[in-house]
């Protein structure tokens, strides 16, 4: 009962705060960004300390759902900033014509060059298979397909990492991608709708490996003091995910939006990312990465299609995946 009263109080406070007379900057993002364990709360606090504004995050499922929501709303959208698309989505996002150029030039600490005048990266990561420290894991997709290791992955039609893996295989093997999937088919225990289910299954021992990010072991090391997980380094290189934000052309707070985008690349924002989003910050903070990140693997080669390529290849790549796994 105490909690109920407490909760009612909290909700009331939140509503009251929103009603105050400060300019409101609305940022659409994916749900896990705004969750209490994501970067949202810390970012909100830090930005509101310097902007004299009310930063409001609106969560909408995952990156793909975020873009759908924006398309549903069109130019009536309340959003000033959309944060959390990735390079698989930016081509379609740009095409909506809803975004304005960010006008920021910055150096990024990413393994790829970035020159996009509309979308600004805020973090990035490499996809990787995560497994136990003592697993004897093969170092390329062919060997993995020949092995007896079981893998759980996500569905590329409903999940960002799932799509990332399909693009990974495509970028590494091109026309041979179908054959690689044929080899992997019997290793793949199951395909889950999203990252959480797959990772949960892996931790429950349902598979030897799970598709996630090279940064995943850092969570177990830093938050749980468990050094037992590792990412498997692949000879083909690792496909990247670059997460970006963009400013809406129809924003009624264009200056605040610019201010937020600039803030996004400062240490106050970037230093929150590693241990909340468990990704690499787009600009390494002055203090460097948190202790524990130095134990992570560093892929020899970063793979990434540019947005137009990604869009052009997507459907065929998924069809190859589906054909191999449906058998």
């Amino acid at each position: 009962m105490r909690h109920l009263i407490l909760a009612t109080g909290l909700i009331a406070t939140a509503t009251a705060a929103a009603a105050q007379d400060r300019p409101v900057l609305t940022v659409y993002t994916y749900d896990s960004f705004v969750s209490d364990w994501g970067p949202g709360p810390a970012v909100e606090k830090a930005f509101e300390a310097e902007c004299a504004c009310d930063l409001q995050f609106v969560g909408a499922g995952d990156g793909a759902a975020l873009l759908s929501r924006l398309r549903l709303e069109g130019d009536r959208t309340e959003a000033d900033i959309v944060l959390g698309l990735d390079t698989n989505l930016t081509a379609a996002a740009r095409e909506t014509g809803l975004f304005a150029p960010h006008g920021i030039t910055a150096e990024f600490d990413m393994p790829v060059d970035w020159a996009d005048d509309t979308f600004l990266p805020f973090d990035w990561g490499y996809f990787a298979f995560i497994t136990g420290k003592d697993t004897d894991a093969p170092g390329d997709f062919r060997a993995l397909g020949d092995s007896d290791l079981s893998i759980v992955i996500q569905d590329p039609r409903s999940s960002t990492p799932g799509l990332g893996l399909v693009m990974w295989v495509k970028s590494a093997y091109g026309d041979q991608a179908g054959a690689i999937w044929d080899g992997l088919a019997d290793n793949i225990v199951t395909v889950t709708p999203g990252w959480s289910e797959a990772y949960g299954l892996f931790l429950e021992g349902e598979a030897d490996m799970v598709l996630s990010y090279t940064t995943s072991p850092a969570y177990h090391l830093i938050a749980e003091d468990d050094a037992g997980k590792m990412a498997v380094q692949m000879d083909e290189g690792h496909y990247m995910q670059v997460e970006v934000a963009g400013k809406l052309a129809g924003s009624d707070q264009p200056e605040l939006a610019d201010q937020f985008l600039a803030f996004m690349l400062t240490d106050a924002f970037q230093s929150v990312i590693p241990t909340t989003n468990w990704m690499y910050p787009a600009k390494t903070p002055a203090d460097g990465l948190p202790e524990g990140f130095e134990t992570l693997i560093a892929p020899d080669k970063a793979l990434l299609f540019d947005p137009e390529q990604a869009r052009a290849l997507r459907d065929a790549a998924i069809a190859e995946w589906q054909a191999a796994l449906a058998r």
Partner: protein
Amino acid sequence: MRRLPNGKRRWRARVTRHAPLPAWPGLLAGLFLCALILGPLAAVTWRAGGGGWPVAADWAALRFTVLQAVLSALISVALAVPVARALARRRFPGRGPLITLLGAPFILPVIVAVLGLLAVFGRGGVLNDLLLWLGLPRVQIYGLHGVVLAHVFFNLPLATRMILQGWQAIPAERFRLAASLGMSPGTVLRVLEWPMLRGVLPGAALIIFALCLSSFAVALTLGGGPRATTLELAIYQAFHFDFDLGRAAVLAVMQLALVVAAAAPALRWGAATGFGAGLDRVQRRWEAETPLLRAQDAALIALVALFLLTPLAAVVWRGLAGVADMPAQVWRAAAVSLGVSLAATVLCLALALALAVLALRRPWIEALGLMGIAVSPLVIGTGLFLIVNPWADPARLALAVTALVNAVMALPFALRMILPRLREVEDSHGRLATSLGMTGAARLRWLILPRLRPVLGFSAGLTAALAMGDLGVIALFADMENATLPLQILRLMGAYRMEQAAGAGLLLLILSLALFWAFDRGGRDNAAV
């Protein structure tokens, strides 16, 4: 004119002119329901500028969806018959709590339940450990059989409960007569039980079929790959991947068409045999009092309890570790969920009562209630978003919409429970009430509500528990402040906090069961005989 056994004509058929209860609340509820389901569909279609044609993969998804839903419904119902019979004719210590607990799988959030199932049937699960120890080969859960297994796990308790009530509606005198005539168990089955089952089974199967039509996460996760693509995944894909709203709307219409196609024959075959009277009456069954049948029933009940309770035990076990350091946000979310759940319960009962009154005269009304569980929550959520968005901030309405959608989702169950009982009450007491001028509110207050109390309690418990555990549309709208408990569980998992998520899952299980128990109990306590 149908004749009752005592030679009296049924009087009910004759009463036409002076309806003691008004039809308008039912009409209003029906319109509301149609608006709530067809409105969003129309909004999505309108926004798309017309329907889209399904792609080849969607037809495969349709086939798989129907296949798994039919199998899940048939197997759940087929297994539920002997279980319900065993429960109907045996009394043993712990029978009541067992029946309550058996309802638990149904109310768990999908992912919590799936992890519980995997702890038993998965690669590293208890079953495989046992097989290994016995020197037998492992079993693989992933595939169509895994999907069906999970759906049976979810729905067997529901089917059992519905069929059990059918059994209890058979008057005890009939079994006494059967005993005095020396009928064998087989004859009792043919003469007494089969006619009841023929009335109850189609409706039970229909509800489970409709539920399984919109399965998404279970089917994909346990289906083992893209073979197990359901319509709901195809809809997700159409929405978020291809942004093909027209196709999404057409796929949702296909779900609706499937339910209507299944409902027509099921409601026709399923006679209006009441589930009826007391919920916890054990009939003395002389013909079944042989050691063999006793052993058979005991074994059945034990097996089903094992099947349903072991994964639950795993949920509890996994949750215990995390429950200790659950973050404060989980408690806040629990309070939010509780509020949503109670609002959904009130709304659902009001809708169900209004529709049930109307359905006394127009049985097809019951099919309306099924639409809510069959149509994609994604389409309803998106459509509502489209409708609400020009007027208000959807995030502010997130909780209201969640309560609304949950009320509608629980409606078919509430209707299935309430309608036959209402019919019975009107049959036995309606004429007296009418002759005394008890109409409208007076009839509701002094006749209907007190007589329906047990089924209302059960329906309220089911709705409340269901609404506690449903992730539903909240994920489409929610902001930081008003996350529900299931959403918070998902967020914990998304932030690697699997242990805390398991703890929150346990909390959810406890809260849902407590709600269910309290309502169900409240309905039965002091209930007039």
